[in-house]
């Protein structure tokens, strides 16, 4: 089981850390009235610099009404609760900009909404509810199919504006509205906007923090409440700041960054807290990579993760939304519970070993781990750039995969990209061509797929006790199906390299 403290999970890691000079990691406690024993304890051990570093971007408070310094997340809460000033720990009623639900939690949320508000009640705003069937779609499971029907009936009754329906399960392309994995679809369809509050009945709703907004997962009962009122009582979280500096080595991806952080602070290290990402490395990340970073803050227990919006964000949003948005930024004097600094140039490709996302190890340390399959997919690792990264490794090696390699694009858009976008340096080949030449399975229909197991007939579900390298987000016992199955979480680079050798493999074997 995972270590509950911030100290590295294994003695071998400490040695490794010294060997590699990864003293790049440090943390310093900023003066703060909040007592979080675990963080302070570790900070005391690791203080390298007691001064908050100069930040690259400083923006004055956009509202003009802010009296004292606040973090980005605190400012979003302040605006959404119509209060000039807030502090961590305050409980406030927050106006919700967007509520997302899907086929797993939607029917239950709708059930609670009807039970509590009445069978004829209307949702608070038909344009602010986004309903995305994505989890259990391509299955013969009758209950799963029925749950999508419940969503459809509700959306018809309520005239919900954004419902990404699927009726023809035999051919997803025959469904003009169907998108696929909710967190990626939310971004691609323009539902993620800086400064806003997005709640969703899925713990990976935090993905949208990549857009500089507050986004977090809630349960059915809370969602039922939001459906009726458009509000929710939320507690303002204190913020942990993660500053990642340095040019990203070309063998690393955002997945490595977040696995590094989770390994450092543990699966409960950010419980109840906001995680803000900053630094030159973060600024250089694409939107999809920022989404990967924020996607897994829940794996550290985080309430939300945020990347401040910048020109990369605005450019991404240009053709996706016409709704005006107002980004907010942490004040220069904002109080962070703890600041962590990483020199990314020194980081090496990582994996999270079974059965916990904080069970961090270097990919090269696991080179003797024989694997049975590789899975590329999910909200974490099933985006266009994730598949591009896989294709890059296959292209560099020119070899075929040695284990079954399953590809599940997150959304229809990603699926289309695999068949249309040329892979750089390939002479015009698409991902799908490269995957076919490498001997992978044909890309499947977009869905959450086997990331969370699902019904028994789910494509690529681990129905036997096999070992899998996966670009997904969780490796708890039974997560991808079989309880005795073993899942190594890795970046798309590492997953692709592992597919080529049949062992957990550092991608530098092929990329350098």
């Amino acid at each position, binding site marked *: 089981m*995972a270590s509950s403290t911030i100290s590295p999970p294994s003695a071998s890691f400490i040695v490794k850390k010294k060997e590699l000079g990864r003293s790049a990691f440090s943390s310093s406690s900023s003066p703060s009235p909040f007592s*979080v024993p675990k963080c302070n304890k570790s900070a005391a051990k690791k203080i390298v610099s007691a001064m908050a570093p100069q930040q690259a971007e400083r923006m004055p408070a956009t509202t003009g009404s802010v009296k004292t310094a606040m973090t980005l997340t605190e400012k979003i809460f302040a605006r959404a609760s119509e209060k000039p000033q807030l502090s961590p720990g305050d409980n406030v009623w927050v106006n919700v900009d967007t509520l997302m639900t899907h086929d797993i939690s939607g029917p239950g949320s709708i059930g609670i909404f009807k039970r509590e508000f*009445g069978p004829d009640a209307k949702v608070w705003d038909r344009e602010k509810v986004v309903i995305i069937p994505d989890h259990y779609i391509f299955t013969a499971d009758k209950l799963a199919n029925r749950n999508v029907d419940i969503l459809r009936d509700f959306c018809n009754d309520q005239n919900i504006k954004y419902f990404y329906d699927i009726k023809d399960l035999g051919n997803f392309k025959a469904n003009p509205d169907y998108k696929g994995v909710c967190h990626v679809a939310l971004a691609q369809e323009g539902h993620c906007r800086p400064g806003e509050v997005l709640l969703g009945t*899925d713990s990976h709703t935090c993905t949208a923090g990549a857009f500089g907004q507050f986004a977090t997962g809630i349960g*059915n009962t809370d969602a039922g409440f939001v459906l009726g*009122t458009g509000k929710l009582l939320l507690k303002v979280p204190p913020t942990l700041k993660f500053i990642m500096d340095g040019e990203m080595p070309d063998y690393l991806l955002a997945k490595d960054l977040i696995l590094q952080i989770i390994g450092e602070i543990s699966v409960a290290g950010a*419980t109840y807290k906001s995680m803000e990402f900053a630094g030159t490395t973060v600024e250089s990340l694409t939107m999809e990579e920022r989404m990967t970073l924020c996607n897994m803050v829940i794996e550290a227990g985080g309430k939300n993760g945020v990347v401040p919006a910048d020109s990369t964000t605005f450019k991404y949003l240009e053709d996706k939304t016409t709704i005006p948005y107002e980004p907010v930024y942490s004040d220069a004097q904002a109080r962070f519970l703890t600041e962590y600094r990483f020199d990314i140039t020194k980081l090496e490709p990582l994996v999270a070993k079974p059965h916990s996302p904080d069970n961090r190890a270097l990919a090269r340390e696991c080179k003797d781990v024989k694997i049975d399959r590789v899975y590329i997919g999910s909200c974490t690792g099933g985006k266009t750039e994730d598949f591009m990264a896989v294709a890059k490794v296959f292209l560099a090696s020119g070899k075929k995969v040695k284990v079954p390699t399953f590809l599940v694009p997150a959304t229809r858009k990603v699926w289309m990209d695999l068949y249309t976008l040329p892979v750089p340096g390939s002479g015009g080949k698409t991902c799908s061509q490269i995957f076919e030449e490498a001997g992978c399975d044909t890309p499947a229909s977009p869905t959450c797929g086997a990331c969370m197991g699902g019904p028994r007939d789910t494509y690529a579900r681990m129905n036997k006790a096999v070992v899998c390298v996966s670009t997904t987000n969780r490796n*708890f016992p039974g997560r991808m199906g079989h*309880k005795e199955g073993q899942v190594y979480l890795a970046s798309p680079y590492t997953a692709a390299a592992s597919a080529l050798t049949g062992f957990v493999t550092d991608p530098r074997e092929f990329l350098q």
Partner: protein
Amino acid sequence: MAVCRSTTAISLSRNPNFSTTNPKPSLSFLSPPCLKLPSILPSFKPLTSQSPPDQRLSIPRATAADSATPTTTSTTFFHGHCYVVGDNIDTDQIIPAEYLTLVPSKPDEYEKLGSYALIGLPATYKTRFIEANQTKTKYSIVIGGENFGCGSSREHAPVALGAAGVAAVVAESYARIFFRNSVATGEIYPLESEVRICEECKTGDLITIELMESKLINHTSGKEYKLKPIGDAGPVIEAGGIFAYARKTGMIPSQAP
């Protein structure tokens, strides 16, 4: 299931240790400002059309035994056998994803969810939480370590435990969403221990939890442990969740006539 309850008058200030400056999870859900709710919720839509009360009460909660007279009773202690688990018990172990097709707000599917509670625990757990062909557990109290309920936001997790007959979970700490879902649904009391009792209690031990005194007694070992006060989340669970609590306290209109 052996859950004993006694009745006392409701008191919102039952916890003298309650303090708004103490950032512990039990305060995350409701703290004093929310008691003034009606005045800060002017824009809520009126709750006009309600389903009949029996529909709501048909779903057993942590307070099921008292649900017939919820306004005059208060749970003060639980008594029963405990089931002991370790750290980081995630929601995939509490209720594996393959059972998430069951919709918790449908009474028959609620019962079914309960029958699968903790079925995702690995084979290292020799004693089954729910015996084969049974739908309810013999263990009304679950004792865990740190970060109980981590992972997904599935409300099916506290619901499955509640539906199986669990009244309270006692863990060192909780994942945020699980804690909140437990309170919002009123399905189980997510109590926190001050020490690591999951290493001192064994599955099957006879346990009494005294809620008012924030105390856990292990009758099998003869040891007593202090729990962290449940704070303002207590009355919400007691009422049967946020909606029931909000109605009971006048935050939102009670049943339409």
